[in-house]
């Protein structure tokens, strides 16, 4: 197709998406970066104040941003490890010849389709029901909130990662494993030297997805603990939300936190991508 005819049709092909993309992403992003250097309550009364917003929340003792950061970082590390190890182990077991694998896959994957808020309230009922026997509840201490969130996240995401690992394992050519067996490799050696290197692309994807999902967690946090006790189980996304909508005059600070949050997410995504891609085997 000649470029000239195509270009005559450019408005039809590009305009609707680009108008929406500008409204939904480009304009809010640019305005967001600008507003992080401003003091404002609505967009129209913004006053430029330099980097004041970026300093204010580090020095304010009532702001728990740093605590949220550690809480989120620890949560991310724990969930990424648990979800990927368990997800991979289940995938290994379910790719063996076992009766009922299809049913198990269906069941394990299901929680992933339910929305974060609904999941949060389901687990609140269950965990508070257990803790009630000990005269406690999820709001008793941040440790309970943390463990609750980890359990919830595992329940939601293990099935998802398992599905990706299963497709990775099934793509390994059978001859490769046959050859290893003939050479006298033990099952452990096959796993370490054949299976894991061959599913490295799946591992890249799964660690990426779990990393960003855990780091950006919002709905589940809002529903399960809502930051209780006194903001101690507040993760970064919820902390930013509460700074915007829970504190008058702090909108600029909320936006500054959001910029930092964005930079952290971007850094994690890029570093993780670089690290695991370099371990992948060329096929």
């Amino acid at each position: 197709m000649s470029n000239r005819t195509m270009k005559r049709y450019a408005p039809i092909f590009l305009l609707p998406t680009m108008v929406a993309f500008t409204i939904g992403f480009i304009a809010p992003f640019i305005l967001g970066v600008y507003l992080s250097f401003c003091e404002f309550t609505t967009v129209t009364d913004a006053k430029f104040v330099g980097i004041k917003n970026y300093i204010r929340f580090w020095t304010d003792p009532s702001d728990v941003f740093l605590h949220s950061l550690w809480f989120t970082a620890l949560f991310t590390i724990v969930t990424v490890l648990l979800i990927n190890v368990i997800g991979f182990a289940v995938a290994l077991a379910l790719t063996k010849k076992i009766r009922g694998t299809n049913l198990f896959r269906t069941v394990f994957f299901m929680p992933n389709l339910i929305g974060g808020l609904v999941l949060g309230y389901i687990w609140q009922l269950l965990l508070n029901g257990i803790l009630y026997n000990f005269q406690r509840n999820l709001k008793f201490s941040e440790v309970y909130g943390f463990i609750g969130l980890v359990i919830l996240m595992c329940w939601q995401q293990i099935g998802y990662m398992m599905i990706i690992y299963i497709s990775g394992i099934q793509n390994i050519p059978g001859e490769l494993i046959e050859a290893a067996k003939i050479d006298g490799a033990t099952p452990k050696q096959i796993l370490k030297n054949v299976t894991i290197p061959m599913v490295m692309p799946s591992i890249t994807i799964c660690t990426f997805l779990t990393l960003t999902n855990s780091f950006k967690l919002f709905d589940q946090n809002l529903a399960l603990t809502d930051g209780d006790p006194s903001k101690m189980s507040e993760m970064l996304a919820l902390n930013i939300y509460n700074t915007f909508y829970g504190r008058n005059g702090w909108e600029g600070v909320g936006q500054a936190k959001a910029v930092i949050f964005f930079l952290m997410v971007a850094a994690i995504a890029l570093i993780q991508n670089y690290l695991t891609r370099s371990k992948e085997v060329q096929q």
Partner: protein
Amino acid sequence: MDARKAKHGWVWTIFFSVLSVAWVFPIFLVVMNSFKKKVYISKMPFKLPTEKMFVGFDNYVSGVQKTGLIQAFGWSLFITIFSVAAIILFCSMTAWYITRVKDKVTSTIYYLCLFSMIVPFQMVMFTLSKIANMLKLGNPVGIIVVYLGFGAGLSIFMFTGFCKSIPLEIEEAAMIDGCNPLQTFFRVVMPIMKPTCITVTILQAMWIWNDYLLPSLVLDQKKYKTIPIAVQYLKGGYGSVDMGAMMGVLVIAIIPIIIFYIACQKYIIEGVVAGAVKG
């Protein structure tokens, strides 16, 4: 050897059966409690409802009345279907155009889409809701524009990935037969892209149906609620939550998803895998 293998297999089957039961237990628990009087729910969620606790469908009725869940269901369905349709139509068109025409504009669009994929929603949350407000997009039709805009990055990225693999000869043949670019796209390219359309549909539908934050900030909540907004609405500002109504609402929110999942399981799982591998 074979006998031993088979025996081993059964151990695993039993193990995973037990695990599967444990896996669905939380959902079962919510369903069971939705038939109990609210005072018994928080204190003894694990007890089966006895005659004294049983309330029939009262919780469902009060849940639906308190939250306007039926309308919320309708709005959720409306917003999800039309947003996904808009995303599929417009993003596939844009993606095809930017893979076929190579210039500065199209490559800028492509890199902007890649970039938008790593930007968390919190970054644009406040400004997006203000802009949507100014443009009067706080209604179920306007929010479609917002979803198209915020969902465009991933969708265009996935469509371009597929477009690159379509052989040029097919399109050239259509051109020689006298098709203009629009006809070529809808008659030739779109049908080939069907698998990618399914993948994008599933990923975006799962996101939009369950999304709470974006509609709660953009929509005029007094007039329009989606299901997640209705669920959160029950929690309200102060005081204790009506656990009975909450259970009813949760069950009604879960059931359609499970039915839909069981009906289109194969597509959903394939779509999720394809989406993850390319994304």
